[in-house]
């Protein structure tokens, strides 16, 4: 494998590191899956929060002037 520049060498080193660790294909798939899992988890948490009525609690706090924010705390 011929490296054209330093950047390619760096990326290649990273690839080899990942291959040693878990196999590059697995890493790619896992990385993307992890993003989806995180987003899905976030959506579930958001939904759970809505069902628990947390949006109302947020609103009840946010419609009052926060004295701590102003520096009166």
């Amino acid at each position: 494998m011929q490296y054209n520049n330093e950047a390619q060498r760096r990326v290649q080193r990273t690839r080899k590191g990942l291959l040693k660790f878990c196999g590059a294909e697995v890493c790619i798939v896992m990385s993307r899956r992890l993003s989806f899992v995180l987003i899905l988890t976030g959506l579930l948490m958001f939904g759970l929060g809505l069902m628990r009525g947390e949006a109302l609690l947020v609103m009840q706090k946010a419609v009052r002037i926060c004295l701590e924010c102003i520096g009166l705390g």
Partner: protein
Amino acid sequence: MLGRVVRLSSLRRAVQVISAVVSNFYLKGFAQLGIYQGPAKYACVPFLNCYSCPGAWAACPVGAMQALLAAYKHQFSFYIAGLLTVVGGATGRLVCGWFCPFGLVQEILGRFSSRKLVIPRLLTRFKFIILALTLLLPVLLVGETGVSSPYFCKFICPAGTLEAGVPLGLGRPELRSVLGGLFSWKLAVMVFFLVASVFTFRPFCQTTCPLGAFYALFNRISLWRIEVNSDRCVSCGRCRAVCPLAIDVPDRPNGGDCIRCLECRDACPTGALAFTRAPVFPDAVVGGRETN
């Protein structure tokens, strides 16, 4: 394709201004020195924007989370954590670079000086401690009444001081008359960060913002991220030179400090950088181009 036609740095500035205006467009609040109390405050914006700002129509996630944690029940908000996880999981710190009004304020002040100091890496880790304290102190440091305080908002948040403390605290006579040492402290913190913004790029975001720290955890694994096409990269170093955070882009394109301003992408002469949903190494082992 949009990015190839439009310079993303110009687009980003427009988006920042629009975001700051839209999230604080309740003009009646500024006129009457009150705050919006309508149903839009059920919603949270995904960036730091004090809900006690006279113009704010939605809640600040850090303020609201702390207010719930500090209340009698010390309730963790899945509603807010979920929202931030979705945003962080999708784009990492893109919100910091493109939507945060206080980030915009710091960047505008940064234009007064062309010479920028680089903040040591260790200092940029401080924000993670702040994040931990922001979540833990309202639960652990509780008064005799069982109620705590939103400590980050109370002692640090310069965005809250700028957006709420200054207009309401100084503007309303009944509040102005009772301002004391805490307000002076908060004012000093705000002035410190605003002055520091002239000499270094977004010092508050780099060192102290708990929301930035939370999103930074997602930068490497977010669905959309910066990809380096090593076949196109000619190691000219322009990406490193233009990066306001002095990030070694080819080495750590998705490091936690990156706010995804995408200046590097604009500067790249060969189009080797992209903000995309592509796999981590598009032409590597999966693509099969590499045969050794």
